[in-house]
């Protein structure tokens, strides 16, 4: 069915991104220079990382609104650890950030799994709790650039084959999770649990436990992003990445992830993120006030969700068509 593949979400979105780039390039050719595109990708890397986690959560019919707060809290924790122990090597910091983020994800996951509390309530609650906790930890103070150790700040900017490690981490995450989603039992369980929870139970899949793992993964990725964000911008404070969870959900919706669960790909989530990333990078270039950003991403969410709904509309049982084929 070549027509089906041509009309697939990913191809449409790639086309939209190409069109967007072409329009920008027609007036500002420098925007599509490889170095600039690499910059855009690097800027979008945090969004990609978070969108992968969010996509997995949404696949299982949940939502994680606490990702940005998790990012900020984990970022603050590793920042303070760095200040207290400047000698701690970066790999240890990374392990701590992933572990701490996963722990915060576990809190969400347990509440959803063991107590069956609606995910939107759980993550609205933990979102405010995480933010508040940052304040309690930091006493409302900022951790500033000069307080960090050099290696702490340098890691995401270190270049490898012409790309910063930040970008490489995003690429690695895309590849890793593409593999996890398509080739592991857990990956397929995410699709099954969200696509048809009732049937998943019959197939021996524990839906609640699957949701728990989704939140844990989302939390781990948010934690990792927390370190990368804090080290790249060399600052940590209470409102870091405030409201960013909406961009993450937006990237997923634009990337074709169905909010009702069961449909979505890692590649789609990445493309959705890139779409938003290109817009936010292009606005200053084409001389539009950055204040337009919020309205544009809002509009993009609405258009994307309309397109998603059109693509996934229930086609009915098609009794007559079968009759025609039979005769």
């Amino acid at each position, binding site marked *: 069915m070549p027509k089906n593949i041509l009309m697939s979400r990913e191809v449409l979105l790639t086309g939209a991104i190409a069109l967007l780039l072409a329009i920008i390039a027609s007036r500002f050719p420098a925007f599509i220079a490889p170095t600039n595109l690499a910059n855009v990708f690097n800027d979008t890397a945090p969004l990609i990382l978070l969108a992968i986690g969010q996509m997995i959560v949404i696949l299982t019919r949940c939502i994680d609104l606490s990702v940005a707060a998790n990012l900020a809290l984990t970022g603050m924790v590793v920042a303070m650890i760095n200040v207290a122990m400047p000698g701690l090597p970066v790999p240890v910091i990374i392990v701590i950030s992933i572990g701490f983020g996963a722990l915060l994800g576990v809190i969400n996951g347990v509440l959803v799994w063991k107590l069956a509390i609606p995910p939107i309530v759980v993550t609205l609650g933990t979102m405010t709790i995480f933010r508040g906790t940052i304040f309690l930890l930091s006493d409302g103070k900022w951790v500033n650039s000069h307080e960090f150790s050099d290696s702490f700040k340098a890691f995401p900017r270190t270049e490898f084959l012409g790309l910063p490690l930040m970008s490489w981490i995003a690429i690695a995450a895309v590849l890793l999770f593409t593999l996890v989603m398509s080739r592991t039992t857990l990956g397929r369980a995410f699709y099954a649990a969200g696509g048809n929870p009732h049937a998943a139970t019959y*197939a021996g*899949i524990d839906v609640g436990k699957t949701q728990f793992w989704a939140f844990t993964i989302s939390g781990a990725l948010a934690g990792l992003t927390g370190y990368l964000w804090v080290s790249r911008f060399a600052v940590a404070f209470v409102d870091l990445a405030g409201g960013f969870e909406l961009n993450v959900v937006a990237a997923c919706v634009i990337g074709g992830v169905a909010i009702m669960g069961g449909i979505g790909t890692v590649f789609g989530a990445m493309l959705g993120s890139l779409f938003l990333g290109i817009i936010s990078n292009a606005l200053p270039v084409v001389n539009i006030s950055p204040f337009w950003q919020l309205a544009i991403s809002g509009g993009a969410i609405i258009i994307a969700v309309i397109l998603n709904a059109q693509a996934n509309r229930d086609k009915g049982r098609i009794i007559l068509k079968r009759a025609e084929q039979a005769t």
Partner: protein
Amino acid sequence: MLMQPDQTHDLPKVETGPPILALNRVTKTFPGVTALSEVSLELFPGKVTALVGENGAGKSTVVKILTGIYQPDGGEIEIDGTPCRFPTAQAAGDAGVTAIHQETVLFDELSVAENIFLGHAPRGRFGLIDTAEMIEKARAILVGIGAQIEPRTKLKDLGIANKHLVAIARALSIDARVVIMDEPTAALSQKEIEELYVLVEELKDQGKAILFISHKFDEIFRIADNYTVFRDGALVGTGSIADVSEAELVKMMVGRDVSQIFPNRAHNIGDEILVVEGYEHPTEFADIGFTLHRGQILGFYGLVGAGRSEFMQSIFGITRPSSGVLRIDGKQVDIRSPADAVANGIVYVPEDRGKQGAITALPIFQNVTLPSLGRTSRNGFLQLAEEFKLARDFTERLDLRAASLDTDVGNLSGGNQQKVVIAKWLATQPKVIILDEPTKGIDIGSKAAVHEFMAELAAQGLAVIMVSSEIPEIMGMSDRVIVMREGRIAAELSADTMTPETLVRHAAGI
């Protein structure tokens, strides 16, 4: 008055060695209901055991216990004489028990191969799923059951019958010793059913024990070796199929002789009330037209998926027909929503009671008055006393059994829920009532009550449309029958010309 079966059936005389799987005095209770009370069941290698019983007899509960979805409250499951437990569906699969479920429990967004192997896919390097091998194995199983399905297709692109074959393939992908088939032929065509019988024979030859659940007696007598009958959650009989007649099985199932279930009806047909002409829908049905009179019961017969419910729902305003004219009392009306239909005196008792019929979390009286609030209220403000009065009037006419009118509908039995739904519509004083599989899944007593009530309604001049897949019900209740096949009218039969054979022939198109 219920009659107890006059003979007690002994537990099976063991003929072919010990059973692979046995249930010993298993009990399962839900809040307020005992679904199974101390039932026993034995499955032998190389034998097909038919599990027979009315809806609600406890058959599905047994399936769920055997597949690890439910845990028994008492009694035990034995495999090869050793007691064991199935805490999860996975555990049942590991113990060699697999099931083809009644509802298709599959995943639209996954491929056919993934549907077959979800949870037990072949693994390759690093514990990753070996996609190539999975597709090959899936293809082999599909070929083995005569299904021409490409394993890489997404499930959502398959038709209903093919989805069912995938479900069968999934059950066979587990190397099972016990295969449970819960109404496996319900969605299949005659040709596919024949192929399934061949498959059952093959499984028998491989020494597997098969539990076969079916409502179709011809099927049971054709392929089963043993039978076990449940009634109201209890075991009432078991033995070899060769030693029993169809009439005896039926008697065990219903607990009484089934000579005269259907009420005698006076046929006083009145004026024309509903005329439908040229109803079309782009995908579901085409060219439907008929006339209905007051006092008439018009049956709609057809196979599952013939488009009967889809058509009824378009008369009721759920789906819009692409063309067609509907006249009620000689006046052409445009029905765009159920609210329009109700306003024009057309009401619909849907097949899916829990989802479409009743609002189970609301109390009885609120369900009954929901479409009639305009009459029980004053200027849009609720009048509870009026509501209780209306609800009492109509539920008592239907002989509803409930603790109070304040009870949530979800706490009632299936039969009583159906009575609430019917009461709800009668309270609107309709002209035409459409009943979609009105007695599906309700106990035999409520069934008779619903039939009697239908006859009474018709006698009072209401026009009744009854969609049913049960031939006795169609034959026993209808003045006329329209047979639908693949979205079109295949035949229209009068009471004199309908026989079970003509109905089946037109419905199946043979």
